[in-house]
Every structure is written in C-alpha cells, then in structure tokens.
C-alpha cells in the first residue's frame, strides 16, 4: 500500500513527491487555481444534513487524538433554534511529538478554512473560532492573513457565500492561546476561549449540546477539517479507497481507518519530518522509505506512536501497522496524533519515563486529585529511581498510581479529562515493557545499604 498522490500535502512539497525546500505559502489565488474551494462549492449545492451524512459515510475519524468519527460528532448537535452555534477549531497542537497541524497552517491555511466553511454549512454553525497555540506566532499571523483573504473572497463575512446561518452572517476568528497543554483538551479549550482559566469541564453536558458560551459547539482538529474539502470534492469512494477497511465480521458501528494521514516522525532517525501516507502504513516503512532509516544505523528499541500520551510500543513492534487499531494490537493507547517518536537501542527508558512524567506534572491543570497529586508523585518517584535512590516498591507504587488515573476505563474513570489517561498510558506502558530497566536501577541500591549509609552519613 502506498498513496498515489498527496492529498493534504498536495500543495506542500513533501518527500517522496516534493522537496521541502520548495515550500511556500499558498495564498487564496493559488489555492483557487489548484482546485481550492471546489469541495465547498459542492457542499453549498447540498442540504446541510446531506453534507453531514456524507462525512459520516466517509467514516472520517478525528485527527486530533481521540479518533472519534467526525460525521457522528456532527450529528450529535441538537436541532437549530435560531441562536448561536459555534465551531471551535483545535489548533492547539501541544502534544509532545506532534507538529503536523503546523505544516498545514504554515503553507496551506485555506485547506483548513475550506473545511471550516463546509463544517459551518453542514452543522449550521454561524461562528467559528480557530484556537491556535500561543507559541505558534508565525502560524497565527499566516492564518490571520488567510482568514482576511477568505473574508475578501466572500467565504466568510457579510457577503459570505454561505449565506445567513442562524440569522447571522458567518464569521471566523483566530484566537490565540497562552501556552497550556490542557487548553488542547476540548473543554479546556472552550474555557480558555471564554476567557477563563483553562480547566477541563465535567461532562455531561458535552460540547455539542452546551459548549462555548453554553451553546452547541463542534470541536475538531485542524487536520480533520482539512480533510473535509477533499472528501467533498472527490467523494466518499475515493476517500475509502485509501486506508484500512474494517476486517470481516466486525460490525459497521465500529469505525475503520480510511484515508490519508499526516505522520510526524521524530527521534533517532535520519530525516525527521511530516510525511503523508495512507492509514495502515507500517512504521518500518515510514522509517526506512521516508525518514532515511535509523540514525547512525542504530537498532530500534521503542517508539511512541502518536504523541507521548499514547505510550510506547516495544522492540518487537518495529513493523507495527499505524492505523486506529494500533492501540489494541500493540497495547498502547492508540494512534493519537500519529506523531511518532522513534527511540534507538541507546535510549534510557527510565529517563524517558521521568521526562514524560515531568511534562504531565507540569501540565496537569490541578483540578482533580488523582492527576494533580498523582502526576507529581510519578515525577518524584521516577526522579528518585533515575537517580538510583528508588526502592523496588517504588516501581509498584508508580505502576499503581499511574494505572488508577484517567477518564477512560483504563484509568477507572477517576479523573475529569484525558490528560491523566496520557500520563497513565505513557508511564504504565514504559514500566510494563521495560520493567527490567527499572529493576536494575533500584536494585543497585538495596534498602539495607541505604540505611547503613545514612547512619554513617549522620
């Protein structure tokens, strides 16, 4: 399997089809000239609901991390009531190891804006906010420029070709975040958008029912929305011709892994970067064909498949097939953002775990107990173990504290949001898959020796 033509990177030169050095910003004229906004035109010829149905039929799954089917999400909206409804575009991209949305924002912002316009029509959303991470200064500028162009070309604004939605002319705003991972979590994003402290909200109510400013709101990732234009333009069959279909016997309610996907590869490889391929591509293929192989020819040890929240796969999983089933198959959280971090044989997994724990303890919003205190203690325990001062029982405590936090069943529903699930999976999979590395660390300092030492010190 391999993609015939680039889709998301159609206008962004990317190996193997193009040279990254030829990349430049696609302005709206170039976008139009290369078939841009064709999908929107098609969508405008359809009833809103038909567009939702089409996206549903395409089984487009969210590219922001959770892989939730976009069409299904759109269909959860309550019927229109004449009052405001929002689209919040998640451009917070703060998952470590993830930099795919940035590529689209940097070079082809209109691909996103087209998706936004289609979504607004399909879901009857009158206002959209693009919530972009604070550190993306340049991208925010580019985006604002593109939004301006879109207004001038009547995509949004008073003469928008979308016409009135909920009795209002459609608007699109760029809203910059202020630098917190939690603001990428969809409800943390909404709080931040409303000008409040970025804390995740308890659910229900879900954003589709009561989101931004208490009104129905759709939240989608940049890449998810960027995919919508091409689907409208080229059709469901075209989209489903790529990726991994549902295996036989699996009910149709279980979504499959169709379509192209941006993979952001970093770590111990020769050519890190964003590459576009079909879902289901083997990681080994990605590393060897696109990334120029392992750095210094070192041996593969482990990889994080989709941002650190998803956890790691082991040394035997070099050929792991990267689709939405990766979690079930290789015992990790899932495909996440498809931000792959490759680690070679020289990697110290205890240090990796400590580094990840530090991230989560720094980024926990501090609202719920298991995550607020738990991420802190994981970091403390891991620092201790890394320094060689840990005890064997610390490993069990670490495993237990990690394993009992998170909103997903694996975290026993003990937290409000998924940040803790990320901490849980990241730490737990590393400890599970590389337990010996931890054990050798703590074994170096058996308890008895420690107390003798401290007596002597005293």
């Amino acid at each position, binding site marked *: 399997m391999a993609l015939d033509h680039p889709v998301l990177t159609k206008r962004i030169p990317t190996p193997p089809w193009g040279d990254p050095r030829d990349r430049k910003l696609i302005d709206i004229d170039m976008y139009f000239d290369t078939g841009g906004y064709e999908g929107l035109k098609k969508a405008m010829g359809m009833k809103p609901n038909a567009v939702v149905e089409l996206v549903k039929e395409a089984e487009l799954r969210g590219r922001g991390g959770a892989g939730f089917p976009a069409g299904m999400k759109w269909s959860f909206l309550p019927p229109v009531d004449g009052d405001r409804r929002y689209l919040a575009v998640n451009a917070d991209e703060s998952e470590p190891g993830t930099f795919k949305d940035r590529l689209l924002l940097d070079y082809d912002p209109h691909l996103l804006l087209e998706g936004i316009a289609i979504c607004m029509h399909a879901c009857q959303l009158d206002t959209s906010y693009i919530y972009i991470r604070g550190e993306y200064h340049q991208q925010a500028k580019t985006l604002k420029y593109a939004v301006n162009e879109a207004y001038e070309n009547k995509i949004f604004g008073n003469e928008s070709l979308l016409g009135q939605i909920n009795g209002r002319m459609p608007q699109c705003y760029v809203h910059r975040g202020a630098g*917190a991972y*939690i603001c990428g979590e969809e409800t943390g994003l909404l709080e931040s958008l409303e000008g409040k*402290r970025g804390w995740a909200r*308890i659910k*229900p109510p879900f954003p589709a029912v009561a989101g931004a400013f208490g009104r129905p709101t759709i939240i989608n990732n940049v890449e998810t929305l960027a995919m919508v234009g091409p689907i409208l333009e080229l059709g469901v069959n075209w989209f489903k011709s790529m990726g991994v279909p549902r295996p036989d016997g699996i009910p149709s309610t279980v979504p499959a892994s169709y379509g192209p996907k941006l993979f952001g590869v970093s770590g111990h490889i020769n050519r890190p970067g964003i590459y576009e391929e079909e879902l289901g591509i083997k990681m080994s293929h990605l590393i060897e064909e696109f990334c120029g192989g392992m750095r210094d020819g070192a041996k593969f040890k482990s990889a994080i498949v989709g941002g650190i929240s998803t956890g790691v796969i082991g040394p035997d999983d070099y050929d792991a097939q990267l689709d939405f089933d990766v979690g079930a198959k290789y015992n990790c959280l899932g495909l996440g953002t498809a931000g792959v971090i490759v680690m070679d044989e020289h990697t110290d997994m205890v240090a990796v775990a400590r580094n990840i724990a530090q991230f989560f*303890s*720094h*980024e*926990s*919003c*501090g*609202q*719920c*107990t*298991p995550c*607020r*205190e*738990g*991420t*802190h*203690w994981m970091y*403390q*325990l891991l620092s*201790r173990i890394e320094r060689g001062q840990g005890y064997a*029982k610390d490993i069990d*405590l670490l495993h*237990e*504290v990690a394993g*009992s936090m998170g909103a*997903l*069943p694996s975290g*026993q*529903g*003990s*937290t*409000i949001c998924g940040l803790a699930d990320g901490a849980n999976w990241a730490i737990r999979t590393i400890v599970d898959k590389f337990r010996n590395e931890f054990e050798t660390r703590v074994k170096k300092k058996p308890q008895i020796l420690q107390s003798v030492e401290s007596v002597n010190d005293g």
Partner: protein
Amino acid sequence: MISHIQNNGRTVSITIDGQQVEIPEDATVLTALRSIGKDVPTLCYSDRMKPYGACRTCLIEVEGGKPVAACHTPVQNDRNYITQSPLLTRLRRNITELVVSDHPLECLDCTANGRCDLQSLAQQVGLRTPRYENPRTHNPPKDDSHPFIKLEMAKCIGCAKCVRACDEVQGSFILGMSGRGYDVKVIAGNDTGFEDANCVSCGQCVVECPVAALEEPGTRDFGLPDNTVNTTCSYCGVGCSLDVNVKDGQVINIVPSKQGSANLGHTCVKGRFAHQFAHSTDRLRTPLIKDKSGSFQEATWDTALDLIAMRFTELRENYGPAGFSMISSSRCTNEENFLMQKFARVVMGTNSIDNCSRVCHSPSSYALGQALGTGAGTNSFQDVHYSDVLLIVGANPTEAHPVFGARIKQSVLAGCKLIILDPRNTELAGLSDVHLPLRPGSNVAVINALQHVLIEEDLIDPQFIAQHTEGFELVKKEMSGCTPQWASQISSVNSDLIRQAARLYASGKASQILWGLGVTEAGHGSNAAFGLINMAVMTGNIGRPGPGASPIRGQNNVQGASDVGALPNVFCDYRSVTDTQARADHKKIWGVEPPTNTGLRIPDMFDASHHGTLKGMYILAEDVAQSDPNTSHVVGSLENLEFMVVQEIFMNPTAELADVVLPGTTFLEKDGTFCNSDRRIQRVRKAIEPLTGTMVDGDITNAIARRMGVDLGFDSGPDTLIDPSKIMDEIAALSPKWAGVSYERLEQLGFIQWPCWDKDHPGTDIVHRNGEFLSGKAKLTPTPWQEPGELPDDQYPLMLTTGRQLFHYNVGTMTRRTDVSKLHKAKEETLRIHPKDARRLEIRNGEQVNVISRHGHVCVRAEVTKATNPGTVFMTFHFPESRTNLVISSAMDEYTGCPEYKVNAVRIEKVSSAQNQTCPDIPSASK
C-alpha cells in the same frame, strides 16, 4: 442554588446496589443514592453549588462500564449503580492517600480536629501513613491578619469549594485558583489578600472549607460548642436563620443555618460575625435614674420600675391620652411590639404609639395597602430566581440586604435581565442591562415616564386591567403628559434610556419590581410606590411566581412591628382603630375599650412635645436623637418632655436625654419572633441568659404594667416574666392574616409567611394570586409629579443622598462594637463624591470637608469615587460622631410623614489647612 430550570416531572428507573429507585431524570447519581439513605464520601461536593467533580472520592461503579463520579453524573434509565466494591474501596483509599500526601499530618494540633471532612474520610477508608514518603513541598505560613477569615493554606486540599461559594452563593468572585498541577492554590483577587480584593466578609468560603485551611476565630479559638441554638438575625429585613454556638454561656460564633428558608445557608458579615456586641463591656447593666443635677445614678430595678409606674400614672391622670406617647422598636420581637402597643392602648389609654418604619417604609405599606389590600410585598425572596426581568428602584441590596442582594446576583448571573433606577452606581447597577442614574428626588417623574411609555406603546395587559383593576383611565389621563422627554428634563436621565427600560420591563414574562428606601425616603415616596405598583398591575406582572412588586424592608422587624399594631392608627393586622369589628374584637379580649382617636406619628410626637402638649414618652430601643432626620429639632423636643423612659442596650444620645434608662437585652438573650421583609415569621430563640443586671425588653414592659396595677395577660409564672407564645396566640386571635400562626406551628414548619388564615393554612408565598387581589380589584392610582421638598440652588448646588454600607447597621451601635470595625472599609464615615465634582471643588481623596445644608452642617473626610454620579454626593448614617442627620431636611411624604432622608441640597466646602484639618464646631444639636 435554585435553578431557573424547573424539573419537568419525568422520572427514570435505576437500581442502586440492586435496589430499585424512581428518580427525576435530571438527578445525579449522588442525589439518587442519598435519597435512599446510602452515601459515598465527598470532598468537593456541596448541595447548594453546582457539581464540580474534582476530588473524585465519590466514585461509584456503573454495571458494565467504568467508575464515574456520583456527584456530577446524571442518572440514566435502567442502569445499575454499585456503591461498594473492592475496586471502589481501593480507588477511594488511593485518592484519599493522594490528598493526604500533601497535607500536614498534625490532626491533634489542628483546630478542625473532630470536624474535618478529610480526617473523617481517612478514617472511613482506613488510611494510615501515606506511601509517598518524600517531604511535602507546600508549606505557606499561617495568616491571621483578617479579623474573621483565618488562613492556614498549608492545609488546603484544592477542592475550590471556597472559590465556588464566593462565585455561586455570594456572587462576589473574590477567590480563584492560581497556578496549575500540584502547585494550584487559592488566591484572593490578584493574590492581594481578602480585604484588598474587595471581599465582603460574608464567610461563605469559610463555611464551605472542608478542612482547616479557612477558619473563623470562634471555633478555632474555643473548640467545639456546648450548645447550638437556632435563631433569626436581628440586623436586616432578610431574616437570615442563624445557628448560634454557645460555650460556657458565651456566644463563640454564629454560622448560617442550612435550614434557613430566607438565606439558604448564607449570611452577610453582620449576621455572621458582628455579634460580640452582646458581650461588650459597655452594655448597660443597671437601671439609671437622672438626678436633679442631670447626671445618671445607678438604681435597683425595683426603684426604677416603681418610679416609672408612678410617673406614668401621674402623666395619664394629669394629661390624658394626648400627654403620652410611645415609640416601639422594629429591632425588638413581634411579641414585644405587641406588648408595647397593648401597653399604650390598655394601660395608658392612648393610640400614640409608632415605630420606626415611619422613617423608612410607611409609604410602601400605605401604597400597597391602598392599591392591593395589604401593606406588604407581593412575593417572596425565592421569586427572584423565577423572574426574567428585575426592576430595582432606589435600593442597594448588595450592601443593605446582602443575602437577598446575593440571591439577586445569582439570578442575574443566571440570565435574568436587570433594570436599575438609582442615582448611585451600585454594584447591581454595574451588572444591569439598563441603569437610569436619576437625580435624587426625581423618582416619581421617571416612574411616571415609565408608565407613560407602557401605556403609549401599548405594552400593557388590557385583559388583566379590565378584569382585575379599577382606575386605569385616571392613570392614563394623568400619565399622558409624562413623556420621557419631560422626565428627562427633571431627572437628567436620557429619555431613550427611559424608553428602553420600560420596554425591557414589559418584555419579561415574569418581571418583578423591588424597591428600597431610595423610593420611600426620597420625597413623595407614596406616589413613587403607587407608580411602581401601577406598572406591575397594568402589565399583569403580579400574582405568580416571579413577577410582583415588593419593597425590601430595612430593619429586621419593621414588617412585624407594624403588623402587630405598633402604629397610631391601626391595631394589629392593620385593622383601623376606628373599625367597629376590630374594636369589638379587642374589647372582648382586652376587657377594656381601646382609645378611639388616632394617635401621634413619630414626627408629630416631636412637634407635640415642641408645642408642649406631649409630656411623657416611653421609647424602646430607638435612637431617635441620632437616626431621625433633622436631629436638632428632635433633640430639642425630647429635652422639652417632663418624663422620658428609654430602654436600651447601650448608652446613646437618646438615652442621654432620658429620665430613666433601663438596660434591655439583645436578640441573643430572648425568645420571640421576627417578621422579615417577605412576611416570613420566624422564631428568635434565647441562646444565652440575659446579662446580669439586664432584663428582657418584653419583661420590662410587662413589669411596668404590673406595677401600674394592670395584668396584660401574658405572665409565664408568678414573677412578671412573659410567655411570648401566649402573646403570639393573642396576636393570632386578633389578626385574621396571622390566625394560623402559633409557636407550635413555627416549630413544625420553621417559618410561616402571612397571610396564614387558619391553623391548617400553610402560609402565603405569593399574595394576590391569579388576579385575586385581597382588595378585590387592584386600584390603579394616578401619581402626579411634585417637586421634592429640597431642591438645589446656587447656594446648595449638590444633592446629598444617604444610605447604608455593608459593614454597618444603622447608627453602628452594634456593629461598631465588634471586630467588623477592624476592616478597612468599615472604619469611618466618608462623603462620597464624584471625581468631577471633587476636581471642581479642589477636594482630594481623604481631605476633610464641610457638608453644609439648609439645616445644619457636618464635617467628614471626602472619598472621591465613581460610585456616585456628578452632582450627587453620598453619606451613610452609621457613624454617630459625624452626625449625618444634622444636615437632613425635615420634608415629609404627604401621606405618611416619611422623611426625605435621601434628598438634600448641600454645598461642600474644603476645610482649610489653617483649621489644621480638624473640624470647626458644629452648632446646636449635641448638648
């Protein structure tokens, strides 16, 4: 919190640990399981705030799914919920362990020992020392600087209950969580500390804190109380229900009662913290008799009471009913007020008894009585949660009636529209959709213009008018000329704003009008009240949950004092003293013929004494020499009396003028009832014994009667102590609208709102339901515009208006004897003046100024603030030494004699530095 959304009555069926439960579909799992007597631990949940879901100790299992937090998860039909399992036990213990891992393990040394939620939880889940053995990293020092809120943030567990209490209950948004992750902490304002963050010291955050991170001095310093007594606050007309904690016969602290129907577990700084006055060392502790030289001598109760009995008898015999009058007290109980008026009518044979509602809300009672058939507000506090538009006129409830003010804020924050008619930029004005900042004294003009717009733009309800009212044509005619443009000239409010306000009011499906002293004490108060009632009636906004027209009554028992007949023209329940049936009923029970002539109103009393016809007075706990308008006139009148008795808890300017001063008691030392602003009769219960040397006020009145040979009929035993429940029975027997009230029922129901027609009647939350007015048809009353008694001119170019401030009460007698006075904002009187005026007069913030009116002058410090508007200045009357009332006019409402406290032309002069920043002498007045 009461939400705007009312349950639609649909239920779902679930099972909890196998037990079938039917429960409203919007219930949470926690409410469901508590409804069948089960429980799970909670640290961050509070039943009056929105679920928050942060501590995660309330996890329960859903069969076939993952655990969920019970406190915020809605029930789902057919689900089976499991509250106990090995997994849950482990999770709960682990979570508790995590909380404790950052908490000092010094329970024995902790002031919350024995009443700490975390401690009980640790016990419950069987937690011992946590496994995380690193030292804790957070250890901020204790902060004891605030008089009421003691901080020990090392113990904070980050549940944000305090933050949410401040937001959701008090509506002040003082607190927030700052930092993230492990380092989150509670901060006040921008981490500036409570006081600088504008905290109003309501104490809700302290109530909600589950550990010892936020504590109040009482329990902290004294440990657990011996005894807790439920009673009703004696400060304002909200009538908060309080739990008084007592140890060794002393009040150690007061906390809001969760059962309180008026306050729902809330209080303001006064009810909650301003109670030390009861134990103040300068309480009057012995009767005082003035000797020939004019100085007071201590006397025994026997001597004092005998003297009074003798002099009262002489007065009655020498001068008859015209020579004697009484002022009762809205601070005292219904029973004591009833006793006072019975004393006046039975013992002294006079109807000259009045209470201070004269100086506040008599125009409201009058107008409501005339127009609708009863002199009280139409609705209850809780209705603000059902209103979709509130029109608030001349009231500053967030300062004067803080708990009701907080409920108004809750409603507004939940989406209710708000119109404010007030010269000041009050807190609510800041939250309002339309604010009409009118010139003091121009209420009637603006209210007329509002009526004009309603009629002109056909925003009225013709069907309701036709069916349930009379007099519409007269009103229509009177209002025809009252255009917004016309009102704009008088009030200096933009005419478009007036139109907007009228339209917004009319747009509500449940528009409610509330008014305060700014209506009744601002000249022609009755007409303003009539106008507001007209608006409600014309638009049919009355008689349902939500819409209505109600005054917010000032003091704790002004409603009750009038209800039980401490008025010169009516018996209890506002039955006229000339009404034959009322007279017959009274004669039957009292055994004597009550006097027929209408008695003197308070202002008339002073005039009568001035003219020498009134010779003696008996004043119960009213500092008229200080709180009545035109102080010099009042003082002169009192000095003119032959004999005057004052019952008080502290020496004050009025008592100074008395011949005999009797030491009464505070509400903490007596039994009785108060009737609050929304007609809610609630029990006052004795928490501590009367201080040695003092007597309960009702007992004093009764003892005087006894010594004059009259048995008023309420003795509880052989001594002359009264049994207040017997008095209530007599009130019930003589008042049709209180007929169903008794102590027994009050114990059962907690409170009764009158009208309560018989012993089976539940009381009335909303009067005049469905257009059935107590008066039959509502009377629409034309309200012609008249200039106020006081107008500015070249010499007195500014308008002074007076009012209350949150931290004090009336003349500050009580509040200023408590730690409340340690708060910055409660330290001294200031003249609040807009920067524009200040600049013109070259007055700087904090400078001494002279406030000069046509009636007198006072000297205070200027506070330059945008809380007032240009042209208007503001003072309170909480600080006797600044004697605000010296500058107040003696103009009165034409119908009720209510003084125009709020409208005074003044000029402001800088006190020159030559006078060395001290004030020049104040002429007259003080003696």
